């Protein structure tokens, strides 16, 4: 009567569909396919922190070099157009870095990134041309409007208005006490 039974089971259940991924019996710790997948994801190749910024810096230098050796070299530092792709690369790097740190915050950061993109387009438009259109814009009204509506307004409204059940409601549903 006092013997310890070895039939203690542990179940690993899928977070999404609720199916049983595997059953573990009394501490038998074999990795399942799913867990091996986790391990393979975690073992992705790692670089030191300076690799990506350094590579991007070299790319920016290359772009600046092309601009420098080509005519007419009238703008500041003898650069005519290279400042824009360089700003774009820095902007994309910062956005990607922020997102990889906190991907769940995309619904806040995503619309902000689009706003930044709008400012970037606006600045680029203002910097050149006759600036005699609406708000001094020549060509960027449509892309800005597009980004404002589809990149900022619609995702934000949809996310804020997304109906999610509270944990109390989920519990009531689970125990059938609705």
């Amino acid at each position, binding site marked *: *009567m*006092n*013997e*310890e*039974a070895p*039939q*203690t*089971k*542990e*179940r*690993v*259940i899928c*977070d*999404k569909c609720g199916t049983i991924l595997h059953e*573990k019996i*009394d*501490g038998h*710790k074999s990795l399942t396919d799913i*867990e091996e*997948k*986790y*391990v393979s*994801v*975690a073992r*992705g190749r790692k670089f030191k922190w300076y690799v990506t910024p350094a590579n991007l810096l070299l790319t920016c230098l290359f772009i600046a070099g092309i601009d420098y050796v080509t005519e007419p070299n009238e703008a500041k530092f003898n650069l005519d157009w290279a400042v824009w792709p360089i700003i774009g690369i820095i902007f994309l790097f910062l956005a*990607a870095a922020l*997102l*990889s*740190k906190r*991907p*769940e915050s*995309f*619904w806040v950061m*995503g619309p902000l990134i689009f706003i930044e993109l709008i400012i970037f387009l606006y600045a680029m438009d203002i910097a050149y041309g006759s600036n005699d259109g609406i708000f001094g814009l020549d060509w960027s009204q449509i892309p800005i409007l597009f980004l404002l509506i589809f990149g900022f307004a*619609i*995702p934000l409204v*949809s*996310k804020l208005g*997304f109906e999610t059940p509270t*944990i*109390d409601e*989920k*519990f009531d549903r*689970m*125990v059938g*006490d609705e």
Partner: protein
Amino acid sequence: MSKMEVFRAILDGYYSNILWFREKLIPPGKTAILETLKVVGHVTTIEAIRSNMPSKPRDVIVKDPCLPFHLKGSRTGILFTHGFGSSPETFRELATFLHKETGFTCRAVRLEGHGTSVQDLERTNFLDWYKSIEFHYDELAEEVDEIIMLGHSMGSTLSLLFSAFHPVKAIVAISPPIKLHRPDAKFLPLITWFKRYWPTKKSEVASYQKRGHYYYSRRALKGVINLFDLMRVTRKKLHKVKAPIFSCVGLKDTRVNKENMALLELLVSSEKVEVSYFPESYHSIHHGDEKELLYSKILEFITRETKTE
């Protein structure tokens, strides 16, 4: 952080829009038209990518001293539920004692997210913990005719909640938190944006380690939020609890004070509610100086309740 997760987060904001467009633009019953539309390729691709994405990598391997245990005995069973951040092994001594004295079948639950990693605990909520108890309850119910629920701290709150929806013979609740007066708790969701884990007191971890028990050295703040959710839901459901209850609290306990006992008595529908106070004990009464007294009181209560019929 995997690239797929970043991709999933990027897709998330647009996914609801795609579904909305698909629902509104395609007439009901004519979804087959999607097959002919060029856009269907993108919609189904996004759906496929989204549904096949791997979950967040986390350590789900249960550590050695944290496995649930089962002591086979008579047709009466006791189901032990441990507290927040703790493990089933903390009940080994009490379970062995009760098993020896009564001969009852004893089984200790490992709650989901416990005994693995603090990242794993962070992803779980009290519904997962409830399901863990349900799983072990069903397994135990195959062996025994009647089940007594026994829990410590959060485990006792879960036991009380579980007893509201399942037939149990009696409930033993050691230091059950029903309502904690922490006004700062309402700021926890905000704090989790900046800080996900909070270090546990070194002395507390050391005391667990001294006994050979596993205990997280950090607290997942999302888990703490879940603990408060659990207490709120339990308060709402306690009126459904009808089984006899033995509840106790240490008077030196800085987390669960004796007001919780009064609240428990007030909210439950049980005819028998025995409350006991331990003047020299802290939160873990079953490991403190008065544990022998607690053991004897639990034994007395269980013996009495199982003999009544």
